[in-house]
């Protein structure tokens, strides 16, 4: 019964099953960013603490830093916030908060309640800069190296597992670069 012509449909079926499960395990919401490996888009945005003062990311050249896109209306941001607080506690890098399509009052109240891991917070109320960064869902976090190149984009909340297994090793690696 093990004739080749009977085996071929069976093998083809198994190949299809493998492909199906590989496909099902992919999360379609995690769209890979074309910005990884490219310079972080320049911008100038007002600061949450004092909207008359602006911030430009150029000042962080020579340092490894993270840009965390968040908002007070975002549930996932609430979930990941303790992890960000922990990262800030470890004092490895500066985390810049990017308040996306939010109001200043609500953002500030949110930080007062849940803690502030950010070196500073910029506000993008209209989402125009977010557009340049390819933001489509909050939270998203970009990790930028000393040369200002985006090296990794984390889509969705950062878990403790992500932090210890992926993020912190990456930060250490980027910091070791010249």
């Amino acid at each position, binding site marked *: 019964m093990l004739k080749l012509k009977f085996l071929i449909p069976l093998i083809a079926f198994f190949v299809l099953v493998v492909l199906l499960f590989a496909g099902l395990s992919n999360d*379609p*919401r995690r*769209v*890979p960013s*074309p910005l990884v490996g490219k310079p972080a888009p320049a911008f100038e945005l007002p600061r949450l603490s004092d909207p008359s003062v602006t911030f430009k990311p150029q000042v962080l050249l020579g340092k490894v830093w993270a840009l965390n896109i968040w908002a007070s209306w975002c549930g996932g941001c609430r979930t990941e916030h303790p992890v960000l607080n922990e990262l800030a506690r470890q004092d490895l890098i500066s985390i810049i908060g990017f308040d996306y*399509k939010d109001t200043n009052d609500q953002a500030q109240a949110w930080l007062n309640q849940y803690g502030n891991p950010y070196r500073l917070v910029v506000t993008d109320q209209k*989402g125009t800069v977010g*557009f*340049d960064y390819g933001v*489509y869902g909050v939270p998203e976090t970009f990790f930028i190296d000393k040369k200002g190149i985006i090296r990794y984009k984390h889509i969705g909340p950062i878990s403790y597992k992500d932090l210890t297994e992926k993020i912190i090793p990456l930060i250490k690696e980027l910091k070791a670069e010249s």
Partner: protein
Amino acid sequence: MRAFTFLFVLVIAGLQLNLAHARVEFREFDKPEVEARYNKLVDELRCLVCQNQNLKGSNSDLAKDMRNKVFEMISAGKTNKEIVDYMVARYGDFVLYKPPFKPMTLMLWLGPLLFFIIALISVIRIVKQRNKADSIEELSEEEHKRAQALLNKGDSQ
């Protein structure tokens, strides 16, 4: 009672029509070519949030921003290619509702065709084999007599 049911169905059907063409903003176009370009682009770009919808059909906030951007860029004199490239540079190939014909997407485009051809070949071969099995060879005179003898022997026992 019948009239009421009919009316009810009509209303529900009418509501479905609205949802299919849901659009959150009303836009003024000064030229029909601009409107045509806008509609084409908004049809071919995907909403990253509601990923199975194009920009035309999606109600999400991001889709609204992207539609505004498309309109802005058309008004600024950008070509269709420039607008699409702008979106792809920020959101990746996934923003194209129709996947581009690239080495990576080759399997996506050719895969179904390949499977169909394989299936067609297999079916042809199976049918041919079956036809072969169906054709009965004629027995020669001698073989016919032998067969008859054997059958008679079987009957008498």
